[in-house]
């Protein structure tokens, strides 16, 4: 029983990381119709900023907050000065640009801070807590909770504030939004900034476990994209749920399904994707895109 609960909680914790990056990808996609492959790379850069600050005696929490702010600005700048010119063009071109951006950021991190593994201090102690007689690691619970809180804050922003309303308007119909006097360009920058800030949270949470390297989130990005397809590009809640499903299933399948084991567990989310794409092309929670003619 203890083993099962721990596996589920660990799965939720890794799933939360995938989920945060997946959510960032969905945010950007909703606002601009693009898939940003550099989402993970930007998060790594933010983690490096936080790490660099901690090596200069800045307290960890403050360093992470500064890195989130940095990431917000970085996201906005990338949107304004790089992606803006591709947003109304061919989406394929834009994808290539974001992949190029990922390579560039990875290279910059490696050049500035080497490819060695850096030790990133953890927000959470290494201990366990006992819940109903089952001991669960604090770090896994903490990671999951922080991501959930970040998502709730975002949800609150989108649903409960004027800015959020404007952001949604731009996402749904940029032309009409512009006609009604909304500063579309600035709102797009905010959208990208928010996505990057969310990525920075994920980066700071996962860095202590993976140790900080320029390619730290390459794998997470692939899983995040899997979650995006599985959950559906149009459903923020859907991708997070999908990411949790992927994290938990991967863990459980390895331990409890003999023929999968630890060798094949990598394939689990991708088999899921094939099944979902065949049965429900719009994703588990997505809506079909309908085009008016």
């Amino acid at each position: 029983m203890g083993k099962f609960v721990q596996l589920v909680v660990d799965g939720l914790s890794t799933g939360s990381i995938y989920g945060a990056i997946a959510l960032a990808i969905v945010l950007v996609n909703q606002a601009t119709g693009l898939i940003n492959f550099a989402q993970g790379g930007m998060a790594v850069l933010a983690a490096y900023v936080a790490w660099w600050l901690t090596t200069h005696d800045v307290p960890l929490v403050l360093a992470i907050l500064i890195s989130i702010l940095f990431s917000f600005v970085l996201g906005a700048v990338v949107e304004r000065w790089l992606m803006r010119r591709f947003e109304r063009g061919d989406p394929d071109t834009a994808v290539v640009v974001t992949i190029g951006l990922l390579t560039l950021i990875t290279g910059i991190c490696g050049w500035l801070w080497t490819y060695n593994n850096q030790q990133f201090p953890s927000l959470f102690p290494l201990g366990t807590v006992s819940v109903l007689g089952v001991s669960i690691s604090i770090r896994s619970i903490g990671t999951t909770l922080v991501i959930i809180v970040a998502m709730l804050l975002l949800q609150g922003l989108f649903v409960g504030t004027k800015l959020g309303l404007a952001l949604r308007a731009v996402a749904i119909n940029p032309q009409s939004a512009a006609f009604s006097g909304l500063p579309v360009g600035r709102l797009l920058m905010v959208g990208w900034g928010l996505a990057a800030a969310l990525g920075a949270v994920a980066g700071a949470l996962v860095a202590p476990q993976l140790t900080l390297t320029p390619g730290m989130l390459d794998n997470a990005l692939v899983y995040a994209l899997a979650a995006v397809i599985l959950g559906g590009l149009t459903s923020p809640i859907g991708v997070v749920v999908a990411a949790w499903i992927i994290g938990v299933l991967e863990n459980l399948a390895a331990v409890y399904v003999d023929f999968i084991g630890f060798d094949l567990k990598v394939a689990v989310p991708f088999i899921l994707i094939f099944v979902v794409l065949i049965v429900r092309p719009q994703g588990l929670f997505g809506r079909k895109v309908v085009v008016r003619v």
Partner: protein
Amino acid sequence: MRRHTRSRTAFRIVAGASALALMLAGCGSRDDSGRSGAGDSGTSPGITDTTLTLGITTPLSGATAGPGTCTVAGVKAYFGAKNAEGGIKFGDGKTRTVEIKALDDGYDPQKAKANYDQLKGDVFAMTAGLGTPTNRAWRQAAIADEVPQVLVMTGDPIFSDEKESPWQLGFVPKYQNEGEAMGELLATSGGEHKVAILSQNDDYGKGYVEGFKKAIEGKDNIKVVKELTYEATDTSVDAQLTELASSGADVFFNAMSITPLMISSLQKAQQLNWKPSWFLPSNTSSPGAILEPGGASAYPGVYSVSFAKAPASPAFASDEDVQTYLAALKQYGDYPDPPAFPHCQWSWMVGATLDQAFQKMKEPTRESFMEALRSIKDYQAPLMLEGTSVDTTQGDQPAVSSVVVQKYNGRGYDTVQSFD
């Protein structure tokens, strides 16, 4: 308006991800080139009357970059210091300086092979590169081309088998040697022990487990209660640790070659409140780079095997060998910090062992070099621990096959005779 449909977007994500995977596999090569001398007639490539060029392909980026960077730094430091003294007097009477050309393979076998192809015409010998799959990728080619692939950092037995690999020689002990030394220590402890094993699902992990099991065979007081594997490409072994922890083992043998995974294993077991004694391979048991961040002091004992003095250990802080080495590493190896990985010390020894061979080789040819290299016996290379030595004459063993078992003392290691 977005006019592309949902399935097209999905297709685009998949296509993009594939392109990305291909690209990640192929980026980040670095060339620290020295000038290569064109081969004169009658001599092998990479050697002139005044210089000799060595080639290295090793991971300088990716998860294994830390140890990989060290494999270059130690050799560079050794020959940098020698070159500054005017060079090395070879067995043919000429004095030569030694240049190093190092390329990054990111621990990717295909890139390692490409690097070898790029280097083989300009270098006299390939050396010091880290990694079993990466060294295996061009082993056959090196034999066909008759290019020495010597003193490489892999414990794979095939490199130390003279019949199978006439142009190869491993440097570090075979995985089996290390596993066996640890198993023996445990077997002679007298107490009852339950062992959990986690191993990398390749020759590296299998070799360690094989040696370990050979040593505990027929010992009634040692029982292996659970065995699991992981893939070298995995980014997390949390699930494995959770499963192993529930086995109630009091000894954990973790045959793992990936630095970040080893750190997270040490952390994860604490998160699960599982506190066994650990046995670790020599290349993933560095006090500064792994045990400290992993919080290894929480465990009753962390054991590993070694043949090199650890500069961080108080016992060797004022050792003359260590002083010389650290100064050279800083000055010639582009490695400012005290080294976090033992590979820096190992590759310094590789330099010293090559130096021995250079002094013995009668002709400026690769054949003569291999002959000289295979004739080094009981050489106490700088930085070697008491009770270990370089011996290349055995025909089925790497240059270093002797190890001592050590226990972590919170800062460095102490050699131990018994498991308690």
